[in-house]
């Protein structure tokens, strides 16, 4: 694996995370519990789609095979996707969506903070822009998790159920593999394991305030970021997302 091949993989991971999560969040448009939340969720999705354009755009450039962000998004099959399993999990109820968002935001904000000092200036520049957006995402999702966790009996129970359901997908965010090792060696990105302490700090502070309990089991699913073992959910998401491009190949839209 050359450095550029590793960088390409790494950029796909970043771009696929924001692509798939942005898609999931956009599914809410028109269906949120209240207009203010509908609008806020759309803002989050829009930020994530914008970040996708930047990460996948750079990935295509690094790859140098004439693909662009759209080709990467719409013309790869599931095993070529490099997103974390967490972000492909279904929306569930509003609580599950917000819990997924919070867990992702907490990790994403820590990661972007480190990427701002990346030795690759292109990576650092995208991270700097995205970091501002994600800082707000985290503030908002953390507040909502606290509000619903420490709300009514029902909202508390639903948030605890969401946390229990999603927690096994947290571990994957901190697993290292040869791609990560190459990025660390090049000074492009931090070792995923090194993000854990800061992540744990944010999560335990917020979940304590939300009166929620972190599940005791440390078991973690894996296979998203290397594409070896996605969930069944991803294929369905892609068959919706990619349908037009697949049905009418080669068109301009």
């Amino acid at each position, binding site marked *: 694996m050359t450095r550029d091949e590793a960088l390409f993989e790494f950029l796909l991971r970043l771009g696929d995370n924001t692509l798939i999560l942005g898609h999931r969040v956009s599914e809410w448009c028109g269906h949120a519990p*209240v*207009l*203010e939340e509908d*609008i*806020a969720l759309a*803002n989050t999705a829009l930020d994530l789609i914008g970040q996708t354009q930047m990460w996948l755009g750079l990935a295509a450039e690094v790859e140098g095979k004439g693909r662009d962000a759209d080709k990467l998004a719409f013309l790869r099959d599931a095993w070529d996707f490099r997103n974390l399993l967490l972000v492909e999990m279904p929306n569930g109820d509003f609580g599950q969506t917000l819990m997924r968002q919070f867990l992702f935001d907490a990790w994403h904000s820590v990661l972007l903070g480190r990427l701002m000092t990346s030795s690759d200036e292109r990576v650092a520049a995208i991270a700097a822009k995205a970091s501002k957006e994600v800082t*707000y995402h985290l*503030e*908002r999702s953390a*507040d909502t998790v606290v*509000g619903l966790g420490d709300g009514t009996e029902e909202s508390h129970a639903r948030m605890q159920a969401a946390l229990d359901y999603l927690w096994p997908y947290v571990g994957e965010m901190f697993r290292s593999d040869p791609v990560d090792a190459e990025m660390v060696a090049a000074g492009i990105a931090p070792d995923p394991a090194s993000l854990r302490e800061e992540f744990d700090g944010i999560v335990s502070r917020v979940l304590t305030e939300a009166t929620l309990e972190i599940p005791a089991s440390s078991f973690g699913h894996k296979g998203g970021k290397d594409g070896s073992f996605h969930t069944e959910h991803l294929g369905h998401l892609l068959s919706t997302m990619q349908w037009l491009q697949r049905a009418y190949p080669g068109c301009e839209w």
Partner: protein
Amino acid sequence: MSNEWPLWEVFIRGQHGLSHRHVGSLHAPDAEMAIKNARDVYTRRNEGVSIWVVEARHIAATAPGEKGPLFEPSESKVYRHPTFFDIPEEVGHM
């Protein structure tokens, strides 16, 4: 008890140096969420640098009938306006 989220009035400073201006209303469970909602609802097109929110029920207002007594007296105090005073052109800009 009604479970509708309270109504908030939103004021936004469009640019540094300008006053906050009323831009609209929204619903939110508390002040913190009202500010966040205001950010998401009323600054989608880059409209602001600072946000105030105040719960609508806390706003005191003049009654429409008082319009005469409250505002008309100042109409006769034209000397408060700079154009009331003729300054010779030779004096320059003032």
